[in-house]
């Protein structure tokens, strides 16, 4: 039995507001892999992500997780404490069993020049990569990445995603991004989140799930991108 | 004929009316406005000033006087110099200090003939037959205040060294005295002794008062002052003011007017009980009119000179000031 994350009839509106965010939202992610949560700005992607991680409650319906015990939610505005260097922080916060992965991730993420620096001394891209790296070094079954690769150049981004897929083949990732191309190219399942006025509120599309070897053909990529855009 | 008589009568009435109105308007001359700053808050020690304010003594002498209460942060002499007041009440040490620093102040009348500053003590616990019995006692004084000056003068007069007594710094509360930590506590005989004495009496304790003046230390207290400029430029105003004021004081201290005087004090100072004011009034009278037929407000030149000497001896002034030159005798 595979990992599964299922949403059944989720209804929710923000506290103190009558505007509904989710209306009878029903969908599922049924396998491990690198998946995407895609949609226009303000549609509720971060809200849904926080519901999955348990940071937001007060909704009706059910979110059930099978074979998913540890869910982590990472977002791009996070920071490391100001008194510690990147190296000190990674060493202090990585569980013993994962310490062996530090070097590999640091190399892939291009973080060697940052190791002795403090967070505030890093560029935005370096900051986002550092944040993502420390989450990847934790024990998790599902990692939700909310714009975690913003401000990272395309080449590095590709290296990172491919490395993640290679290092963690049996884990589940939910990648929140506004980039149609990368979502279409790298993701296995793309959950399109639409406004609550539309029925159904979510549409699931298969992505190209590019891992290693030959990248997807342009026409296949374009086809997926068109599907995504039409679904919005 | 009848008609002529009627016209003449009407003219006469008109004439009388005109003359009458004219004389009324002459009586309604505007009152001369002046300010009078007291030394302390409205209490028994200013009964005469309050009387003058309440019963028209100033108005009858052509003056509209604003009587302002004093307080710890107020200084009548400074206000006179700046021009915020034309008359004031200050103690002799204030006057002498001011004169030593070039202040153009003159003294018009002396209110207290005996300084109200005394020390309360328990004769059972602290028998004081002679001033030498002060040795070994804990004596309360306000550092920087009159009581410090008077006590030091007393000790010096009777050749008691400072290390032969314990001087205790006094603040607003009497707790150290009530607890017996301090043997002698300074207070104003007329204003505070009735209150403190009452408390001791209720506690079944006897008390007595140490009088520096009876022991030969004359230190003049509250006196009425003005500026030399005021005296030179507005002598009539000064004369009328002093006349009105002394008249009011005499009326307020007259035993026949005691109920009215008490009522006046209570009107301006509702915080003190009538029972206490009733005791304070005769205590005040005796300090201001030590003998029957005493001339109220008389300036005791010898006492002023002694006050200056005490201040000189304690280096509170840099040099002699000849204070007698600032005393305006025959004030009214």
């Amino acid at each position, binding site marked *: 039995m595979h990992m599964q994350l299922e949403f059944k009839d989720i209804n929710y509106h923000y506290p103190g507001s009558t505007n509904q965010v989710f209306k009878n939202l029903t969908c599922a992610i049924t396998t491990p892999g690198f998946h995407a949560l895609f949609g226009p700005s303000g549609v509720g992607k971060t809200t849904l992500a926080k519901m999955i991680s348990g940071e937001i409650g007060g909704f009706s319906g059910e979110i059930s997780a099978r074979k998913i015990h540890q869910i982590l939610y990472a977002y791009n505005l996070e920071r490391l404490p100001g*008194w510690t260097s990147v190296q000190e922080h990674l060493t202090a916060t990585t569980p013993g069993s994962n310490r062996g992965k530090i070097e590999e991730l640091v190399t892939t993420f291009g973080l060697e020049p940052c190791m002795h620096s403090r967070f505030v001394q890093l560029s935005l891209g370096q900051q986002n990569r550092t944040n993502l790296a420390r989450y990847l070094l934790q024990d998790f079954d599902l990692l939700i990445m909310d714009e975690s690769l913003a401000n990272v150049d395309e080449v590095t981004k590709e290296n990172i995603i491919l490395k993640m897929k290679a290092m963690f083949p049996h884990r589940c990732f939910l990648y929140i991004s506004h980039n149609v191309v990368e979502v279409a190219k790298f993701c296995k399942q793309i959950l399109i989140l639409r406004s609550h006025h539309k029925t159904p509120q979510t549409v699931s599309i298969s992505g190209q799930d590019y891992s290693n070897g030959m990248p997807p053909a342009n026409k296949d990529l374009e086809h997926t991108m068109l599907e995504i855009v039409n679904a919005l | 004929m009848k008609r002529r008589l009627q016209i003449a009568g009407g003219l006469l009435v008109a004439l009388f009316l005109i003359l009458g109105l004219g004389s009324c308007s002459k009586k309604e001359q505007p009152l001369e406005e002046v300010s009078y700053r007291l030394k302390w808050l409205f209490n028994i020690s200013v009964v005469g000033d309050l009387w003058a304010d309440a019963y028209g003594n100033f108005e009858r002498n052509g003056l509209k006087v604003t009587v302002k209460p004093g307080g710890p942060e107020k200084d009548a002499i400074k206000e006179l110099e700046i021009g915020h007041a034309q008359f004031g009440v200050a103690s002799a040490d204030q006057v002498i200090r001011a004169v030593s620093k070039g202040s153009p102040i003159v003294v018009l009348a002396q209110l207290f003939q005996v300084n109200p500053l005394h020390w309360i003590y328990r004769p059972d616990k602290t028998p004081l037959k002679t001033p030498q019995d002060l040795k070994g006692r804990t004596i309360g004084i306000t550092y920087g205040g009159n009581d410090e000056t008077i006590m030091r003068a007393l000790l010096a007069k009777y050749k008691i060294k400072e290390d032969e007594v314990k001087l205790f710094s006094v603040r607003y509360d009497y707790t150290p005295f009530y607890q017996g930590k301090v043997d002698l506590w300074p207070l104003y005989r007329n204003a505070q002794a009735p209150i403190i004495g009452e408390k001791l009496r209720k506690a079944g304790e006897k008390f007595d008062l140490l009088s520096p003046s009876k022991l030969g230390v004359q230190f003049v207290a509250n006196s009425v002052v003005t500026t030399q400029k005021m005296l030179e430029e507005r002598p009539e105003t000064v004369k009328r003011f002093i006349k009105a004021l002394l008249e009011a004081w005499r009326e307020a201290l007259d035993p026949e007017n005691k109920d009215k005087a008490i009522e006046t004090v209570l009107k301006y100072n509702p915080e003190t009980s009538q029972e206490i004011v009733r005791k304070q009034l005769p205590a005040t009278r005796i300090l201001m009119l030590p003998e029957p037929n005493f001339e109220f407000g008389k300036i005791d030149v010898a006492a002023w000179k002694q006050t200056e000497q005490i201040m000189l001896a304690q280096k509170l002034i840099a040099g002699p000031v000849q204070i007698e030159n600032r005393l305006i005798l025959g004030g009214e």
Partner: protein
Amino acid sequence: MLYRRIYQFFIIYFIGLTVLFMIKYVLKLSDYVIPSPLEIWQTGQSVFFRYLINVLDTLSVAILGHILSICLATIVGIIGRLTLWIGSFIRVAAYNIQAYPIVAVAPIIFILLGDGLSSRLLITAMICYFPLLLSFLGILSEPVSEIEHFYEATMRMNWHLQVKIRAFENINKIITVIVGSGTLAMVGTIVSEFVAANAGIGHSIRIALYQSDLAKVLVALFLIGICTSLYLVSLEWLGLVVRKRLYSN
């Protein structure tokens, strides 16, 4: 820093003196109302060392009281962040108690605790405690979610890490409020001495006022200004050292 503060104080002080002298000479006031420069100088010479000792006495009480307030405000601030209810209760209590006029409370404290160091220390601590407490409460109750989130999500958060994060992120605010309350500590000590104590420069000022000696008061104010400036500069320097150490460690 010290040099600038001192000469800024000198400028303010001498402007104040100049204004006083202008009033004196325009209104032709005697030395009793506003002393002459010569009198101030002579008085300064005669009371300088005595007043310096008094000011240092006051300053030492102020520093002790200030340290006490900082420690107490830190402890209460840490407790106050536990729950919303505790934090809000402490805040309301602080707002109300700090409104009590110290000139009314000080005599009562001296009656209860006597003349010694403890009364002056308590009053000093009370005066600078409340602004410190309200600032610390605010700082320590306000989550820094961008940093704390990782630790909460990975179950690594504990109370001392939380306090450390919030204090570090607001170190500039903390230093500013400590320096600012340093002045309050000095003011509080002087006021308490003025009202009810028998030592310190506040006591000396009270005596000078009884004697209507403004020259002594001006000398006292001069020494208070110099010593307070020195103290504030020391606090600012300490703040710089702390910041440097935190960022270079």
